[in-house]
């Protein structure tokens, strides 16, 4: 046991002997990932609209009530408003191509129609309420708000949805109070629900953020883990064997098993720590990202309950051990350095693929997936973020991965001893 710790300390010290290496391993990938996750939505925005500032909404014939709402509401400032009249709008649409181009660039059009050219939107609504309170049950309002967006772009559609849900609906709900006149007391809702409830707000944020995180975070963590394991195994096993240092180590009166165990322990501790740093950075980046853009990968408010956090935290070293076992087995089986690197890099491509798959996939995993080593960790972390984790999944995945890792290591070292 002491020997294992000696080897472990040696490896850790080696890593920390150069701050450059430490930074490269611990911070650089994490920071790069965080930057990528934050820049990604900006990039998408920029590429689709040509600007990274707020999104423009062209408001045609805005009634006074809407202007007032936009001015008074903080939430409404997410968008940039350009108020124009009917006349200006018809001039704008004359040139069909240039109008299309603007729409393609991500512009939304919010068109207030009253159904009667002589009347304003506000007028139509208040007249409607007057009729209703006068007892006319069959009163109809022609007031309509059209929201125009690019039919051929998912981004544009998502943004329109954001505009309608976040701003227009609230504005519409408030109309009864601002324009309802006598009817506002009887007709509007009798009670309010959660107008101020920080606890539920917090939970709602978490719901949105964790749903997004379940698509992104598991893949990111797995890529990160494999990347670190791969570089450490090639350094601690493959390169050392190539340079002959491993032979020197094996000449010492320490059981090879213990030397390997020390190295594996070092790899596990380092990689787990690096992964936790990444997790922490992802967490921060979620809490910094207040923009909650339609395309954000990690919207505001990612949160795990302590038990969920524990599941993820323990899944990391288990998976790292399995990855280490796979890499070590490759290193011991092959001789040529270039074969080893190609073989070690190949799974990285798989993880990348798995990451993209998880991003686009909307379905829950089928039972079989919990039995596929490595991939099951991704499923586990994803469902933990969705708070859908089941105890038997956790136990199965931990035991399966751990058992497989130990089996691979055992077989590998047995073979090595026999050589």
């Amino acid at each position, binding site marked *: 046991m002491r020997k294992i710790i000696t080897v472990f300390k040696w490896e850790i010290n080696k890593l920390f002997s150069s701050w450059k290496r430490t930074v490269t391993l611990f911070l650089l990938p994490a920071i790069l990932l965080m930057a990528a996750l934050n820049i990604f939505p900006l990039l998408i925005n920029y590429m689709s609209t040509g600007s990274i500032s707020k999104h423009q909404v062209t408001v045609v014939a805005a009634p006074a009530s809407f202007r007032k709402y936009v001015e008074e509401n903080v939430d409404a400032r997410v968008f940039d408003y350009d108020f124009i009249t009917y006349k200006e709008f018809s001039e704008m649409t004359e040139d069909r191509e240039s109008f299309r181009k603007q729409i393609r660039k991500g512009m939304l059009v919010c068109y207030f129609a009253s159904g009667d050219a002589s009347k304003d939107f506000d007028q139509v609504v208040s007249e409607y309420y007057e009729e209703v309170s006068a007892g006319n049950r069959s009163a109809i309002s022609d007031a309509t708000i059209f*929201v*125009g*967006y*690019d039919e051929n772009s998912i981004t544009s559609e998502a943004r329109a949805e954001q505009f309608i849900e976040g701003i227009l609906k609230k504005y519409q709900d408030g109309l009864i109070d601002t324009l309802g006149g006598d009817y506002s007391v009887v007709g509007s809702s009798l009670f309010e629900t959660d107008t101020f409830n920080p606890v539920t707000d917090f939970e709602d944020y978490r719901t949105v953020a964790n749903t997004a995180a379940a698509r992104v975070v598991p893949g990111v963590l797995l890529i990160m883990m494999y990347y670190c394991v791969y570089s450490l195994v*090639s350094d601690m096993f493959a390169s050392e064997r190539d340079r002959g240092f491993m032979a020197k180590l094996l000449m010492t009166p320490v059981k090879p098993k213990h030397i390997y165990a020390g190295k594996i322990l070092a790899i596990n501790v380092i990689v787990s720590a690096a992964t936790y740093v990444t997790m922490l950075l992802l967490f921060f980046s979620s809490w910094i990202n207040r923009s909650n853009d339609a395309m954000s990968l990690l919207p505001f408010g990612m949160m795990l309950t302590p038990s969920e956090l524990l599941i993820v935290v323990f899944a990391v070293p288990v998976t790292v051990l399995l990855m280490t076992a796979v890499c070590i087995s490759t290193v011991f089986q092959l001789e*040529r350095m270039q074969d080893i690197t190609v073989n070690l890099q190949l799974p990285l491509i798989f993880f990348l693929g798995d990451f993209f798959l998880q991003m686009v996939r909307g*379905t829950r995993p089928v039972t079989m997936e919990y039995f596929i080593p*490595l991939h099951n960790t991704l499923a586990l972390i994803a469902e933990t973020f969705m708070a859908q984790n089941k105890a*038997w999944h956790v136990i199965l995945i931990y035991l399966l991965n751990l058992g497989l890792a130990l089996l*691979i290591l055992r077989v590998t070292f047995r073979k090595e001893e026999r050589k």
Partner: protein
Amino acid sequence: MESTRGLKAIIGNFFRKKGQMGAQASSATFLVTVCFVIALACAAASFVIWWFPYHLFSDEVYNVVVVNAPESFVQFNEDTQKYRDMEAREYGDRYNYFANWEHMTHFEYSYDGYGWTEFIYKETDARYDFVTFGEWMRDNDAYLTVVFPADFDEQIKARQEGLTEDKPEVLTYYRTNSLEYSDMKNEFIDEYLEYYQSSIRAEYGITVTSVSDSQIVHDPIPTIDEDDDRFTIGANLNRTFVPILLFIVLLYASMSTGTNVIAGQKERGTFTGILLTPMPRQHIALGYLTGVVLKAIIPAAVIALIASILTFRFNIFCFLAILVYLLVLEIFIASITILISVINDTVVSAQTAFLPVFLILVSVCVTCIQSVSERSDFYLYLPVHGQFYGIGDALNGSVDAAGLAASSILTLTLTAIIMIITVKLLYHERYTVSIDTITEKEIRESRNGGKPSFLTKLNKATDNFSFVITEVFYPLVVLSFYQFVAMIPVVISYMRKAEWSSYIQDLANVGSVKDIINKTFEIIGIFFKDPLYLTLMTVGYIAIILTYIFHAGRVWKIKGFKKKSAAVGYPLSSGKHIAKHYFLGLIIGFAMLSATVGVMYLTGQISFDGFNLNSASIGVFALNLLMWVPQGASEEIMFRGYMITAFSRRYKKAIGVAVSAVLFSAFHSLNKGYTPLASVNLALIAVLFALIYLLTDDIWMTSAIHTAWNLTQGNIYGLQVSGNNAANSVIKTFYYNSSSALITGGDFGPEGGLAVTAVAVVCLVIVALLLVRKKRKAK
């Protein structure tokens, strides 16, 4: 060119078989590959799977806790019960999904759980007590708590009768252990509570249950003509998947060969042999570049060929365009790998360095996945983007000649720059024999001892900066950490109290920073009467002191505790000495504050109104007294014992005193009723304490003064301590209405007024004189 033979030899060397043919696969990698293939198949299956994944469900809950349920709601629930029973009968046994197979294939979470919802009624006044609500939900298998105001029905009635405009507010809390409950909560609000509202309306005889004053219409605007582009799956794949695949193949192939060549040879030591041949270095670089390009382009070209045949409209012209795009892209990627290979000494480090490039390029690919209409034309002319779009377009049968030319020229220009850098580096010892050396110029400069380089200056500046930042933020972090930790149990204990709800409700109206500070101090004022808070804070302050003592030694070990303690101003040498200093300090502190109070009394600002203490509050009073001891000590260790020592070790002592005074003042200024005078006074007091520290060489005395000051102020005279209202005092003091805030400090407490200024200045003069005398004596 005579040495083109060498160039050819280097390129040829890439294709010569070395030992065995091709790469070997290990069984572990094979296993991983199989796993991922199965995983992919499973993921694909999950989209079309027809059986119900029963194992994914079964622990969901459907009950609802209703707090302070108004009679009308209870009645409404009873009325709806029969519908729920009906539904539940239809769906059968709750947990036996197989029994109701036909429903389960399209199972979804539903807010009323297919009729299984039961309502559990509870009562409490604490509307924000989410802890208790959580317990209730757990105990009763509920996913939701709905909290009504206690007088809900009365409020509704009052509003309907026009007595008030206010609407009652219903609060909801839901379980955290599945995100599905979030949707279920929303459904419950939108549907069930909406029905409930209609039922109340019906009671009041309002028949219109819904109004529709306006409608919102989605109006998707087509931006491209339908026949412009066929949105077939194949065309989309050609624009997304195939280019990404080609990129990954190129990147991967270049990485495995490119990083191996120069870095690998350096690692094996065979690179010098090549360097010493009469080959110009640009030929060496070019040879390797061409080798990597040729080796990587072959698999990519094969895939491109297969892909373009699979489009069923194979066009040789388009295929050639794809080849050109691939070739240009590969030359670019290969030049990057060669550059990285030259910079690094080992294969592993080269590959590690290449990985970010790999990931960045793949991310760029992902950002490129968008419809033709959305992308701007100029991306066609850019490197990487241009190739990505170009390949996609060419696969779909259209080639933009201008884009092809422009992106290729741009990319090749970039490549040329990279290659020039690479060749330059190949003349550098650092990258040929991997040894760092310095030039004659640098030696001359260092010998002259001349001006330090920009880098050294920068290092020094950042060093100072980081020192100051660390020292300044250390107290802040330590203090907030322990105070925060001590606060948690107190806040949780208050969460369950009814009166707390109103404080949370008030938070909704908090706008400015001033509001927040006032509210915070109001709340802390309540805490100050709470034994739990006082005890925890006492423990917290002791923890701060210990943190500092251990921090002084930089190592968390009990060993050498005495030495470490002395380093932060608490020499533990002689008990008598400590007692003397501490006792003297208590007296001085008491005297100083009494003098302040005296000034205020004499100028007619305050008056005393007898004794305040009664037997009931004596316990809390004692705890309060106990808390001031570590409180004073912890602040002294932060600002005096630790900070002044740390700063004077590096800079002059005066800087240490100044910095600690400014920070001390800033720390205490963030209080209710702040005035600029308060900052000045606090700084004066800080300087005074610092001088006493220098005079006595330890902080026993200042700790005692600090403690005595706060204690006398808060618990004897009953004044505010820097805005904090201490609760239990011996004497009841009140301000005259005519009192001048300039002298008394107003809401901030005496520290904000001139009375303290006067006392502090007098003391400062005395201590300064003593210090001068001590220095003279020492000489």
